[in-house]
């Protein structure tokens, strides 16, 4: 019960529609009720009249009265007084009673038809009102859905912008490290004084080496010069060296001109993210990166032989359970590509990025 209540609370629109529907049904029922009663009385009256005609004339006044009493009621308007008058007439002129009864039937029919017409009017009125109410609710719901849709799009947009800004920020930091600090260290290492102090020079060289690694990790500065294919190959080598994963990388039919700088970075980041995820969660030994042009698409697949997982498709935004997957998805969307994942527990996971090449001018 609580659950049902909660469903209604969660969806006020459903509750409103539900109440309207119930009210509508009740109203229709009420309006039909009177006409139903009229119909029933009429049927009774007809069957009694038939009985009366079929009975022999030896009926006692009491019996006739009982039958006539059946005619009394809402639609025939006969009270006891009328019946007594009729009974008196019956003694003197039975045919007059018959014509009275017939007249009464006609009146009954008339009333019934009027009643029916009235019920239908009421029914139409309620139906109309119901339609209008439903229509208003529909408008409200659509409006609400539109607003929610807009909010959703807005939040997606915000996420995309944030992600873009983040890339720019990383590029700035990386460029700063590379172009200023590392160059300063380099020029320092060229001075004879420094060269004489060989221990300090050695230390400085180490620092410069790790700083350089850091710059590449923050942003792939070489990406647009080296191209995606070779950068991915290097990324694969780095991962292999750092984490002991065996990472292979093949590119078939690929041309650098398929991608602009923005989409190239997205491709690179998705591979980086996927490799990080594999390294952290998959317990895989082998990873294959495949980049293949298959007109009109450029397809990227990252396949591992790790433990896989069952709920790859239920990316839960609230719990951030598959935040990695969500972020990759957002990145893919930002360049008009689609991202999908396929995972078999025990057999590994494949992430596929499908990018329409022709879409760009």
């Amino acid at each position, binding site marked *: 019960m609580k659950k049902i209540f909660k469903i209604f609370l969660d969806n006020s629109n459903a509750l409103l529609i539900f109440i309207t529907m119930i009210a509508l049904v009740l109203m229709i029922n009420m309006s039909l009720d009177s006409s139903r009663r009229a119909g029933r009385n009429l049927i009774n009256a007809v069957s009694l009249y038939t009985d009366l005609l079929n009975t022999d004339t030896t009926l006692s006044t009491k019996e006739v009265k009982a039958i006539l009493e059946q005619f009394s009621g809402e639609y025939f308007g006969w009270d006891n007084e009328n019946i007594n008058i009729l009974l008196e007439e019956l003694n003197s002129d039975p045919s007059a009673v018959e014509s009275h009864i017939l007249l009464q039937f006609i009146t009954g029919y008339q009333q019934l038809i009027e009643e029916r017409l009235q019920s239908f009017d009421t029914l139409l009125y309620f139906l109309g009102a119901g339609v209008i109410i439903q229509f208003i609710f529909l408008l409200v719901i659509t409006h609400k859905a539109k607003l929610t849709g807009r909010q959703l799009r807005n939040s997606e947009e915000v996420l995309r912008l944030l992600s873009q800004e983040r890339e720019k920020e990383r590029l700035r930091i990386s460029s700063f490290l590379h172009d200023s600090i590392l160059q300063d260290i380099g020029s320092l290492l060229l001075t004879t004084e420094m060269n004489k102090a060989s221990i300090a020079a050695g230390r400085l060289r180490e620092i*410069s080496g790790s700083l350089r690694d850091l710059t590449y990790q923050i942003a792939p500065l070489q990406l647009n010069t080296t191209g995606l294919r070779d950068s991915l190959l290097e990324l694969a080598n780095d991962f292999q060296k750092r984490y002991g994963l065996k990472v292979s990388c093949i590119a078939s039919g690929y041309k650098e001109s398929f991608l602009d700088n923005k989409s190239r970075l997205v491709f690179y980041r998705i591979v980086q993210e996927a490799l990080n995820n594999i390294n952290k969660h998959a317990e895989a030994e082998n990873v294959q990166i495949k980049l293949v042009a298959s007109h009109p698409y450029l397809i990227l697949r990252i396949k591992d032989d790790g433990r896989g997982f069952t709920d790859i498709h239920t990316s839960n935004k609230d719990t951030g359970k598959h935040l990695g997957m969500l972020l990759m998805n957002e990145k893919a969307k930002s360049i008009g590509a689609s991202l999908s994942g396929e995972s078999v527990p025990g057999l590994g996971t494949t992430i596929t990025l499908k990018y329409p090449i022709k879409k760009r001018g």
Partner: protein
Amino acid sequence: MNKISVFITDDHSLFRNGVITALKEDPTFIITGEAESVLELLQSGMLENTDILLLDISLKEQSSLDSMPEITSRFPELKILILSMHNKPMLIKKAINLGISGYILKHSPPETLLHAVKEVQAGRKYLDPDLSDSIFTCLRNSGSGTEADALYNNLSAREQEIFRMLAEGLTPPQIAKQLFISRKTVDNHRSKIMSKLRIDSSARLIQLAEKLGVT
């Protein structure tokens, strides 16, 4: 002893000065000029009299590698020695393909720099010893490009498309309908694909598509 004339292009003035100071300590070298960008370098008019161009890769927002074809075509005699912070093997590979004579890292000691310039001037190629490790790894792993990749590169866009559709299990009539072409054209494409990829059965085609990542 013949003098070696050197021109330096680097957007970092402190570093430029460091290089000039180091070179000046050895009387073998003459500095013909310095520049902050490729544009400035080409406008200097000093390259005709220069033996060795010391060139950084990242120049402000630009990569000097993009201008390499222009430099080498205008000054074919000029020997280019890259002096860069970048140690990514693939970047070095690209530079080598563009016709450089040597590559050294910026954190190298002055002796390495002087030695490299002399080696290059003597007509030899020079690579910074600090790069050997990463280049070694890179060369070892880059050989993974298989014969299949090479064959696949020969497919036209349409053939790639039909190859994928076939691998996805579509029949030639279905493909013909989807691509608005005749059944006969699809069959022609199919046999061309098979011969280009050197395969003779649908089973092999499906296998290959999976291997390449098409399906």
